[in-house]
C-alpha cells in the first residue's frame, strides 16, 4: 500500500504548525481579555470574599517574605558596593546614598519584588488552581452553588495586587538597610545622615510611580497565575505547564510593563 500520498510534505507541515501557533496566540489573547473583563465584572460586585482575600494576602506575604528580605538586603548592599568606584573616581562618595535611593525606589524594589513574586507566588497559584481543575475540585465548587471564579480567581488577584506594593515597600526599606551597612562600613556615615541623604533626592513622583508599578505587577502576577491554572489542560502534565507558564509569562510581562511605565512617568519629570 502506498502511504506517501497521505503524508504531508515537510513544508506543508511547517506551514500548518506556524498557522496553528499564530491562531493559538490570538485565541489565547482573546481568552485572556475575556478573563480580565470577567475579573472586573465579578471582583467588585457583592458578595465580597473578605476573609479569603485576607487569607490570600497572608499567603502571598508569608510565601515571599524570607526570600524578599534576603534579596532586598543583598541588592542594596551590592549595588552600593559596585557603584562606589565610579563615584569615587569623581570624588563623589557622598552621593552614594542618593544614588542608591533613586535606583532602589525608582526601579529595583518594585522589579525585584515582582520577579521574586512571579517565581514564588505566580507558580504556586498556577499549580494550585491547575491541580484543583485536574481533580475536579473547581467543578465540585461550581455544582455546590459557589462561583469558583469569584472565590478562587478574584481573591487571589486582589491579594497579589494589594500585597505586592506592601512587599515592594518592604524591599525598598531592606535595600536601604543593605546600602547603609555598606556605606557605614566604608565611609563611617551615621544612620541619621544616611537616611537624610537617602530620602532627600526622592520626589513625590518617585513614590507614586513605584506604587503604580507594584500595583500593575501584582495584578499581572495574579491574573497570569490564575489564568494558567484555571484553564489548564487535564493531567499532571497540565499542572507542570501551568506553573511554568505562570512564571515565564508573568516575568516577561513585568519587564514589558516596566519599560512602558518608565516611558510614561519620565514624561512627567
Amino acid at each position: 500500500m502506498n502511504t506517501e500520498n497521505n503524508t504531508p510534505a515537510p513544508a506543508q507541515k511547517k506551514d500548518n504548525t506556524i498557522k496553528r501557533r499564530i491562531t493559538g496566540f490570538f485565541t489565547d489573547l482573546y481568552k485572556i481579555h475575556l478573563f480580565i473583563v470577567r475579573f472586573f465584572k465579578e471582583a467588585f460586585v457583592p458578595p465580597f470574599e473578605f476573609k479569603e482575600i485576607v487569607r490570600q494576602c497572608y499567603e502571598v506575604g508569608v510565601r515571599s517574605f524570607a526570600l524578599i528580605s534576603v534579596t532586598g538586603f543583598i541588592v542594596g548592599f551590592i549595588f552600593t558596593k559596585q557603584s562606589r568606584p565610579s563615584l569615587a573616581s569623581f570624588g563623589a562618595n557622598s552621593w552614594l546614598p542618593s544614588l542608591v535611593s533613586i535606583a532602589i525606589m525608582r526601579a529595583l524594589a518594585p522589579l525585584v519584588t515582582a520577579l521574586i513574586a512571579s517565581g514564588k507566588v505566580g507558580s504556586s497559584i498556577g499549580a494550585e488552581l491547575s491541580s484543583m481543575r485536574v481533580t475536579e475540585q473547581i467543578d465540585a465548587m461550581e455544582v455546590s452553588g459557589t462561583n469558583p471564579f469569584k472565590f478562587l480567581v478574584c481573591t487571589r488577584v486582589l491579594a497579589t495586587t494589594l500585597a505586592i506594593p506592601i512587599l515592594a515597600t518592604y524591599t525598598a526599606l531592606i535595600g536601604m538597610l543593605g546600602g547603609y551597612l555598606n556605606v557605614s562600613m566604608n565611609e563611617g556615615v551615621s544612620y541619621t545622615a544616611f537616611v537624610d541623604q537617602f530620602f532627600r533626592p526622592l520626589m513625590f513622583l518617585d513614590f507614586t510611580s513605584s506604587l503604580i508599578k507594584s500595583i500593575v505587577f501584582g495584578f499581572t502576577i495574579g491574573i497570569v497565575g490564575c489564568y494558567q491554572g484555571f484553564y489548564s489542560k487535564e493531567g499532571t502534565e497540565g499542572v507542570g505547564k501551568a506553573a511554568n507558564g505562570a512564571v515565564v509569562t508573568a516575568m516577561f510581562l513585568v519587564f514589558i510593563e516596566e519599560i512602558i511605565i518608565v516611558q510614561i512617568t519620565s514624561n512627567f519629570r
Partner: protein
Amino acid sequence: MEKAKANIDYTKTVISIRGLEKSFEDFAVLRGIDLDLHQGENLVVLGRSGSGKSVLIKLISGLLKPDKGTIEVLGKDVCCLSDKELRELRIRMGFSFQSSALYDSMTVRKNLEFPLVRNQKQLGRKEIDAAVESVLDAVGLSQTINQMPAELSGGQRKRIGIARTLILNPEIMLYDEPTGGLDPITCTEINDLINEVQQRYHTSSIIITHDLTCAKSTGDRIAMLIDGKFQRTGSFEEVFETKDERIKPFFDYNFIQ
C-alpha cells in the same frame, strides 16, 4: 443488603431530556438522548468507558453546554438559565464525583461546611455543626471529622464526597462512577449507602456506572448507553435478557469478572 422498595411517583418527572446531542470537535458523544427521571427513582446509566455517561450528567448539572436538545431539571431548562439561576438550581442537585473531588487543603469538617456556609448564610455555628455531624453520621464516618482528605481511604473519600452533597438536602443526586476503583466490600457499602440516601433523603438519582453489581443493587431502572443513544431501558432483568450483540458482551464480561 437487599434494596428496599422505592417510593417512586411516576406522575412527577424531575429530569426530562429531549433530543440531547453533544460533540467534542468531530466526535459525536451523545446523538439524540431522550430521558425521564421520576421522583424518588434511582436510574442507572450503564455503558462502556468513553460512551458519554459522565458527559450526560455534566450536561444535566450545567457544567457543559449541549449542542442540541433540551434538559429540564425540576421544571427549569438548564440551558436557558442565568448564572445566578443555575447556581440556585444546583443547590437542589447533588453531584458525587468519580474522584470524590474533596478540597484537599481543607479538613473533612471544612469540606462539609463549605457548601452550607456559602449558600445558607443565615445559619449559626451550632446549626452548621449539627448539620455536619448529621451527614457524617449518615455516611458512618463521624470519627474522620478533623482529618484531611489525604488521610482517608478511597471508600471514605467517596462517602465524604456524598456527605458533602447531602448537606444541602438535594432533591436530585447525580453519582459519577460511585464504585469506581474500590474493592468489592467497599463497593457493597457504597451501594447500600446510595439506597439509604434514596430512602432517608427521598432523592431521585442518576447513577453512572459500568459495574453491574452496583447497577443491580441500586437501580430501579437501567438505561444502556451505546453509540451515543439509549439502546435499551427497563429493569435490570429486562435489559439483561437481550440478544442484542452490542449489549450481551458487556454483561458476559462483568459476570466473568
